[in-house]
């Protein structure tokens, strides 16, 4: 949904503590933030939780925002950073799941999450799409982020470079390598083709 007021005005209102501006920001960007996080985390519950954290951080730090980057770039950057941190935490937790469930402070029991099917690829007969989504999920972090921003959010190379705080050639390289890797993953395995 497009933001009804220009970003610069929205930022000024947010910095003045306007509740209406914060609401407009959340409602204007929640879909984009949620989709980026979901693409990286592949769990709707975690994605929503992380998307909320992103907006909470925006609310708490908007006073320090100096407008050096576009508001959307800043939001994407926060979303990517929170999602990657969350994923790293989840991987560490999973690695020590047994120990943590035995020795955890809250005596919590950790379960392995079930295999997640991306909402975009849940329709029947879309195994190829599901394979693609799984292959994207196996890409290295930076490649995955660049690929997601390019192909799911349809950001330009320059916008992706701004989000990742890198250069356009670096983004091109990331995308090139990502596509090469995906091609390999999507090709039928030679041993299965008879």
């Amino acid at each position, binding site marked *: 949904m497009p933001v009804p007021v220009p970003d610069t005005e929205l930022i000024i209102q947010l910095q003045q503590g306007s509740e209406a501006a914060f609401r407009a920001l959340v409602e204007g960007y929640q879909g984009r933030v949620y989709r980026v996080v979901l693409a990286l985390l592949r769990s709707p519950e975690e994605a929503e939780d992380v998307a909320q954290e992103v907006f909470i951080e925006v609310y708490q730090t908007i006073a320090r925002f100096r407008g050096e980057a576009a508001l959307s770039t800043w939001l994407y950057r926060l979303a990517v950073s929170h999602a990657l941190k969350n994923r790293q935490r989840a991987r560490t937790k999973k690695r020590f799941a047994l120990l943590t469930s035995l*020795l955890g402070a809250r005596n919590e029991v950790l379960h392995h999450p079930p295999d997640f099917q991306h909402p975009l690829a849940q329709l029947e007969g879309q195994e190829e799409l599901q394979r693609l989504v799984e292959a994207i999920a196996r890409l290295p972090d930076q490649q995955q982020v660049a690929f997601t921003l390019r192909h799911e959010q349809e950001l330009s190379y320059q916008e992706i470079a701004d989000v990742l705080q890198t250069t356009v050639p670096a983004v091109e390289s990331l995308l090139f390598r990502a596509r090469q890797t995906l091609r390999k993953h999507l090709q039928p395995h030679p041993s299965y083709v008879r």
Partner: protein
Amino acid sequence: MSANAPDFGPDFGPDDELDALLRQLRAQPAPAPRPFFYARVRARLDALETPNAPQPAPAALPWLLRRPAYALMLGILVLGLNIGAAVRYGRPRPAASVVAAPRHDAFVTEYQLDPFTVPLPLE
């Protein structure tokens, strides 16, 4: 498309299976957060801003009893150390064997020399 064809990215490359799949993926309805997302963000912010968040009641049991896994591990560790010590020191020692005296001492004894005047062997 041939697998060996050069790939210059989605904006330059030929239309291949990957691009077709990506188009198919983009054509699906975009996922969205559940309704009332803003209300949930606001509620979390309010909870963060409330200074008197309810604290968990202090547990009456001693710390170790509230962590049975730690207590069990500590018990196993102490037991293991004790068993180790028992095996190590409880083994019957071999009778003190007559250890051959060093050659220097034997020489001093045999010739009844004053051990303080005989120089020590160089090592």
